[in-house]
């Protein structure tokens, strides 16, 4: 949370600067399988965030000594393009990007059945092309789809969304100005089927009550985003079949 000059983030009608209600998500667009050379990929637009995620693997571990005997090593790089933010960002990885690479990996790794590929690596790349707050959550949403697109066995998809507090009120999915001028930010990554939280961070100031409210709000939004992820996968792998071809395909697989 940075500079806090007095700016009204919620107007008298209870609407936010971009016209949203307190509990409204920004528009989200998802696309799976957008890159040619990566084993799996996905693209997300979440509000004005534009993020590309790609997966290579499972592939041979290089150097060999990083390999684990009983499971795949998952590697993750979160990076922001220099032109992605208001002020040009130096291409060299910042401490923030290093921290985010870690927490993002720790949110996706629990969903990957890495025991299936011992002694190999699964490499995840998240490139933020345009940033408008909530990039780590949107990045996780896209990366999870990229993992599915690569055919890597997953326990389930992971959806990400942040909640926060602006002008003293708990709100969902902060935009950039709300993050900069607001009171608190709470990014969350969630897996609905197993009711598990893989990423949880917070900065700002909130009472225990506000925190619990914000957490519930973010989790609900993650459920919605999860359904969008499943739709995006279904669209990509939509299968047209009539009964005769179906038999042929089934037999061929045997």
């Amino acid at each position, binding site marked *: 949370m940075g500079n806090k000059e007095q700016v009204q983030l919620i107007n008298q009608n209870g609407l936010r600067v971009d016209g949203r209600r307190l509990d409204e998500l920004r528009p989200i667009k998802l696309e799976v399988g957008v890159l040619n050379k990566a*084993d799996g990929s996905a693209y997300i637009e979440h509000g004005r965030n534009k993020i590309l995620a790609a997966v290579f*693997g*499972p*592939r*041979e571990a290089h150097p060999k000594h990083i390999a684990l*005997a*009983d499971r*795949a090593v998952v590697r993750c790089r979160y990076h922001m393009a220099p032109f992605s933010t208001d002020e040009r960002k130096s291409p060299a990885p910042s401490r923030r990007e290093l921290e985010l690479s870690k927490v993002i990996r720790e949110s996706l790794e629990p969903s990957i059945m890495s025991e299936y*590929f*011992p*002694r*190999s690596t699964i490499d995840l790349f998240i490139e933020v092309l345009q940033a408008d707050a909530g990039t780590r959550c949107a990045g996780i949403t896209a990366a999870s789809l990229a993992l*599915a697109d*690569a*055919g*890597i*066995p*997953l*326990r*389930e*998809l992971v959806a990400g969304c942040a909640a926060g507090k602006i002008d003293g009120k708990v709100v969902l999915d902060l935009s950039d100005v709300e993050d900069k001028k607001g009171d608190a930010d709470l990014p969350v990554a969630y897996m609905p*089927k197993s009711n598990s939280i893989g990423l949880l961070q917070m900065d700002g100031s909130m009472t225990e009550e506000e925190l619990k409210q914000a957490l519930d709000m973010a989790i609900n939004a993650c459920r919605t985003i999860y359904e969008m992820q*499943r739709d995006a*996968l*279904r669209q990509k*792998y939509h*299968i*047209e*079949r*009539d009964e*005769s*071809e179906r038999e*042929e*395909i089934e*037999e*061929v*697989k045997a």
Partner: protein
Amino acid sequence: MADVVGNKVIVMPVKGAYIPRIDDIVLGRVTDIGMSGWQVDIYAPYPAMLPASETPMHGRDSVRRDLRSIYGGGDLMIAQVIEFDRTRDPLLTTKGRGLGKVTSGRVARINNTKIPRIIGKKGSMITMLKKETGTDIIPGQNGVILVTGRNPDQELIAVEAIYMIEREAHTTGLTERVKAMILERMKGITVGQ
């Protein structure tokens, strides 16, 4: 595709990495030559090893042969997986009919999960491809396919047909459409038999 099975959610790969199985026929490329064998890239998460003892040349004569004279770096081969488990890298052999160095032809690389579609029900698809293009086609279980014909144009048509099958694997009436595409393209070339 993600699906709920009981209380587990499983994502079934509509495409996925090639995990070797014993007895698989694969096409691979030599990436390194060691003391007693070759390291072979079989386009899997694990590099494969072809020991010199698993080549037909080995032990033929008492003179120690330079491994390089059998396979050099970058050489392509058809091999069979003889060993593989979670604790070590796959082991190959080229002792066997039809196995060994590839010296001619074209290679198509598709996702290994589509190989059954290339073969087709009771081999129907691959038989059609071979007949209509006049080429010999060897599909590796690892998604690498070797096409050999007398005529490079025929080989090219066969390769195009293979990529078409990969793209449209999930659709109906594919065999007929591929056959039609091949016949159309074959009109333009002189066929060598």
